[in-house]
């Protein structure tokens, strides 16, 4: 038996094999099924209010409508292809593949990174770029395993200053300064570092 593969469904207890097969079917059909639903439902949400244009020929719904229909048709073909593949696999009694991980993938770290990104997006217009960027670099480096406090402080402070200097100072990009007291702080800080 090769590593990372289970040598045929028959090698497993019948209940486990059936459950696994059911999950496999559900997983493989979930995405095309969802996309089929998207293709069918989305046309009714195309406009916020009823269309009043009496266009000669094709209207504004024609192009997106065409591709939403295409999504539905492709999803249907995809479902048929998946069912056909499942049928063929069943006939061949082939091994149930278990995804082999070439490298260790830490999903908890990925989830933490996503939460950090969402927090950064939420904080940015409230606290402003200087504070949000410093905190983000600090947290991201901690998440990435950097523990040296000097390195953490230097990277986050100097990194934020460099970005501010390049984008707000040189490129004159109006990055968010935050709201209320954070805006006042950002203005004070930008004056301190001679960007304003």
């Amino acid at each position, binding site marked *: 038996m090769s590593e990372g593969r289970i040598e045929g469904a028959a090698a497993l207890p019948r209940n486990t094999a059936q459950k696994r097969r059911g999950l496999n079917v559900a997983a493989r059909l979930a*995405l095309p099924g969802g*996309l089929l639903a998207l293709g069918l439902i*989305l046309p009714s*949400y*195309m*406009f*916020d209010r009823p*269309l009043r*244009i009496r*266009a*000669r*020929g*094709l*209207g*504004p*719904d*024609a*192009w*997106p409508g065409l*591709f*939403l229909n*295409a*999504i539905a048709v*492709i999803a249907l073909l*995809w479902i048929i*292809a998946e069912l056909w593949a499942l049928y*063929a696999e069943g*006939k*061949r009694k082939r091994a149930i593949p278990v995804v082999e991980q070439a*490298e*260790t*993938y*830490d*999903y908890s*770290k*990925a989830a933490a*990174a*996503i939460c950090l*990104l*969402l927090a*950064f*997006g939420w904080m*940015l217009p409230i606290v402003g770029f200087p504070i949000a*960027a410093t905190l*983000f*670099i600090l947290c*991201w*480096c901690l*998440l*990435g*395993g*950097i523990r040296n406090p000097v390195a953490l402080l230097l*990277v986050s402070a100097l*990194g934020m200053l460099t*970005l501010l200097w390049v*984008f707000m100072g040189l*490129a004159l*990009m*109006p*990055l968010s300064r935050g709201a209320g007291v954070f805006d006042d702080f950002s203005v004070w800080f930008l004056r301190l570092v001679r960007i304003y």
Partner: protein
Amino acid sequence: MNTFELLGMGFQNAFALWALLTIVTGLMLGVIAGALPGVSFVNAMAMALPFTYSMAPTQAMLFLGAIYVGGVFGGSISAIIINVPGTPASLPACWDGYPMTQRGEVRKALAVAILASAVGGLTSALVLSFAAAPFATFALRFSQPEFFAATILGLISVIAISKDRPLVSLMSLSLGIVIGTVGVDPIYGVARFTFGVPAMQSGINFVVVMIGLFAVSEVIDLIATNRNLRPSNAANANARIRFRDFWDVRGAIARGSGIGSILGVIPGAGATPGAVIAYGIEKQVSRDGDKFGTGIMAGLAAPEAAKNATTGSAMVPLLTLGIPGSAATAIMLAAMMLHGVNPGPLLFLNDPTMVYTIFAAMILANILMIFAGIGVAQFFSTLMKTPPAVLGAFIILLSIIGAYGVRNNIFDVYVCLFFGLVGWGMKRIGFPTAPLVLGVILGPLAERYFMTSLANYNQDWTVFFTRPISGTILGLAAVFAIWSLWPVLQARYRAVVLLLAGRPG
């Protein structure tokens, strides 16, 4: 005077100290701006425009032309090193350039990209010098149906990229086209798919989608795998770049240069479709076509040559007809008008010195680009020695600044983060992201050309097939699609026959 004499005079002017300094400065600015995701070379050209007020008209054109040449290449540096295309046209560089970097062959990938871009750019500059007038006459026949057909050819190339999963790739492409329809439609001015959110009326910008799908998702993977970006294989990393490596991709470079030079002349086609179409064709032509996407040099060389080959030929309709075919050439047109220069056939009669100095400068810029590219790439290569966590944090911040900078709008930051999460999910389940990006980029163009064609030709859809050039391009697209799908269809047919015969393979 004949073309050679005029070009000789142009070189004499381009080699003057002030001209040379202008070209080098513009090149460096362009390569750096192109390499920074979100800070595109078009933005750099727009920012540089006011600085040309104090320059003579020829110097202004040399400056902007050099930014253009450098910027189109620059996007590939970040694509190859950190899998973030600096410009949309550099997207194919991610597909085979970045896998080379992952194998530890970053220097080889950069060397191939620089050489291919320089050869493509030089070819195109020569096309500009010698074939400007005939090409302009041909391009004059183009109308909306031809532009639509050219865009469809670009979209069809997705099938070639899709390896053996055309259905999934077509799904991804369709999703991208639908995402591209968000916002006010180009003909009737009606808002679509805004779901009551005012910010969505201005649409979803492809740069923001691209940054999210490629940069943000890649960085999440980077932290989850704790992957070391330093070249893992010491033997590969220190391997010398041999002449043989370049010789092996000579065909890919030649084909890419040809495709780019032709597509560049078509207004609206530009570097992005040029690079994608060149990649698709090379995948079909190459002996290693089935391995494309795993770090094959030909897959990197062909689109690199093609995208830079559009730079010179894109100047053909600009200089001979005054038609800017892209945002970059539109800025150059603006610069010419600011300086009181009227582009058109008369420009060749009234001011041949200026015209041929620009031609010579384009040739020179593509040669000097090799050095500018190596310099900037060297700087970017040092990034690889940075701990992945630090690099990841800065890629995210640069991406977010880039997304924000597109329209100075926090909504774009949210869109970027959303597509970052979508891209991460797509990567985890093996759903291709490249066709989606192409759909978002080319979909709105295709819609505009399609709708205006029908409006101009009395809602007669046969116009796309009856007009000779449009019909030919669509015919080529059909041949290309069948050619690309043929091996997949054959394999499927054989599998079905075997299964029905009770001999599952």
